[in-house]
């Protein structure tokens, strides 16, 4: 299957008063029709900027963008503003984190839906209004026709997000980008919205990109996952692979910080220490090294590249730790060891084994 949306080597940087912010630094991914890609990372990892750039919404005098984003043979990065306008909301649609602030407070939901339809389709107001009612029905809003006459503030949080989704679907998009679609919603509503997106995707055959900081959100919905850190992809694989054998310490951190239904109730959730790095003054070497529990001296100088994992097709990671060491560390973490303990155990063994690590500095103690 060929990719519907193919993003290659995307770079986005903004001029700010404090210097150049490298928000996205060489990101590539692709989305196929009928499949869902999860982009996971903390705030400031560049995941939202990536999606907004694909939509052409980060363009501006202080923004530098390079790379390509091919949508069925058309490069969205090189497209003119006019060309983009025909694609936005038409071929590629987007929904956002906070549905209350994302809907215009002064216009009725129906009016906003009709506007979305009439922007890309030459239909009468009456026909557009009928279609708007169908859309609200499609996203599971009861009494849809009546609801068209309501204002966003008269909707509940979940219904607002459903209305946003209806608006995104107005012109049968090929790709739907959902930027933190459930973050602002109640937990029970979150599941409903994710289910709705999955159902609509199956019905309409769209390619879907779900952007989230919460691996739990993409666990059920995404086919493939891309983990972003400091504007770069640090790990990518199928969803099953990522949950089964994650390779990057950052991905471990993300996994350890979500509660497991199967785990004991008193299980402690381990947050990732430290704060997301500055995108103006990137840490030297591996950008994750200041927060990595397994950092070694050489990691502060060498910048890891995204590389294939030998015996695991489709799984790529950007980490300087030897593959064997990573496997052992993850096994120990799985067994319930603290990161500190796991590191000491593995390093003791590594000290006896002068193999892959030769040439690197002695481990930090």
């Amino acid at each position, binding site marked *: 299957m060929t990719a519907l949306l193919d993003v290659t080597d995307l770079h986005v940087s903004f001029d700010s008063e404090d210097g150049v912010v490298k928000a996205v630094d060489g990101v590539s991914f692709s989305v196929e029709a009928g499949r869902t890609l999860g982009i996971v990372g903390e705030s400031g990892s560049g995941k939202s900027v990536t999606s907004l750039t694909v939509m052409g919404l980060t363009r501006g005098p202080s923004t530098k963008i390079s790379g390509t984003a091919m949508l069925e043979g058309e490069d969205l990065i090189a497209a003119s503003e006019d060309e983009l306008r*025909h694609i*936005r*909301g038409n071929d590629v*649609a987007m929904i956002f984190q906070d549905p209350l602030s994302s*809907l*215009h*407070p002064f216009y009725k939901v129906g009016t906003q839906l009709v*506007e979305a339809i009439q*922007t890309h389709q030459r239909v009468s107001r009456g026909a557009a209004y009928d279609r708007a009612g169908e859309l609200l029905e499609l996203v599971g809003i009861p009494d849809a026709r009546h609801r068209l006459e309501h*204002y966003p503030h008269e909707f509940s949080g979940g219904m607002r997000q459903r209305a946003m989704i209806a608006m995104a679907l107005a012109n049968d998009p090929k790709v739907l980008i959902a930027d933190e679609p459930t973050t602002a919603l109640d937990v029970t509503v979150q599941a409903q919205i994710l289910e709705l997106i999955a159902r609509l995707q199956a019905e309409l055959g769209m390619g879907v990109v779900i952007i989230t900081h919460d691996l739990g959100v993409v666990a059920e919905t995404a086919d493939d996952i891309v983990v972003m850190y400091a504007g770069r992809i640090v790990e990518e694989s199928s969803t099953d692979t990522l949950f089964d054998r994650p390779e990057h310490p950052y991905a471990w951190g993300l996994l350890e910080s979500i509660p497991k239904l199967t785990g004991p109730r008193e299980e402690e959730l381990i947050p990732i220490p430290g704060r997301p790095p500055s995108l103006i003054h990137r840490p030297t070497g591996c950008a994750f090294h200041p927060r990595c529990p397994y950092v070694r001296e050489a990691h502060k100088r060498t910048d890891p590249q995204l590389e294939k994992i030998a015996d695991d097709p489709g799984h790529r990671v950007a980490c300087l730790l030897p593959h064997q060491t990573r496997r052992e560390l993850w096994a120990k973490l799985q067994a319930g060891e603290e990161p500190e303990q796991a590191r000491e155990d593995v390093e003791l063994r590594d000290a006896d084994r002068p193999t892959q690590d030769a040439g690197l500095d002695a481990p930090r103690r």
Partner: protein
Amino acid sequence: MGRYIVRRLLWVVVLVFAVVTITFLIFSVLPSGADPARLRAGRSPNPRLVEEIRHRYKLDQPVTAQYGLYISNLVTKLDFGHSFQNDTDVLDEIFKRLPATISLALGACVVWLFVGISVGIISAVRRRSILDRTAMGLSLVAISAPVFWLGLVALYLFADDIGKIPILPGAGSYTPLTDDPIKWFTGLILPWLVLAAAFAAIYARLVRGNLIETMSEDYIRTARAKGLSERKVILRHGLRSAITPVVSALGLDLGLLLAGNAILTETVFNIPGIGRMSYNAIVNSDLPTIEGVVLFGALFIVVLNLIVDIAYAFIDPRVRYS
């Protein structure tokens, strides 16, 4: 909504009553320095004449009696009394003066809304451009320039009697609309522009600031993500929200102008409006006239603010009065 309006209208009555009372108090308690009767009697008057006038206008009665009489006439007969100065009926005089003030204020309002909103939008959209900086610089000049100076400069430049480029009717050329609409219009062009200048500048800055703030809202991003043209994003989604504070400012400003705040423009261009009427009344200690213009001024301000509050409910569907 209906109950809300009724309650607000009742408050209008209370407020107007309070304003009338306070005006009366200030007039009676403070040494006015000028005795209305003596002022009316003319130069070096016969003391008997002064006494006669004082008696005729009941100025020889206690203040409380004067106040009681005024209020009872006002409430029962809608009688605003007669001017101490020239015996004319105060209400008649106000109605005679109002058209000029309303013409001046409303016309200027149209000018400043048009100029202010357009410049505000352009400045917000082309933020930090030369156009924006020039417009904002000029707006500072317009805000700082006193109306009497701006008015005189306008007359000096464009008035058809004394102007360097005599293209427009100058001072004293106000003609009532009912007499001659064309003369009414041309005669008011200069006063409108002069009065509107500072307001246009203030509104341009207001619209610019609000629009810049609105354009960073999430729903603007949504509008762009829909594929709307930037023009529609700005006008239909941005301006719609950014215009709300303009409506409340408009209520206050228009109310003040109708209450006689356009006095400087009226004076420079010799327009017989409410502003000059109040000025003359104050100079001549003409209490009934002062009461009349103050009462009407208060009414204008209160009613326009009520209209603004009602308009809010139509602009912003989240606003509900109960």
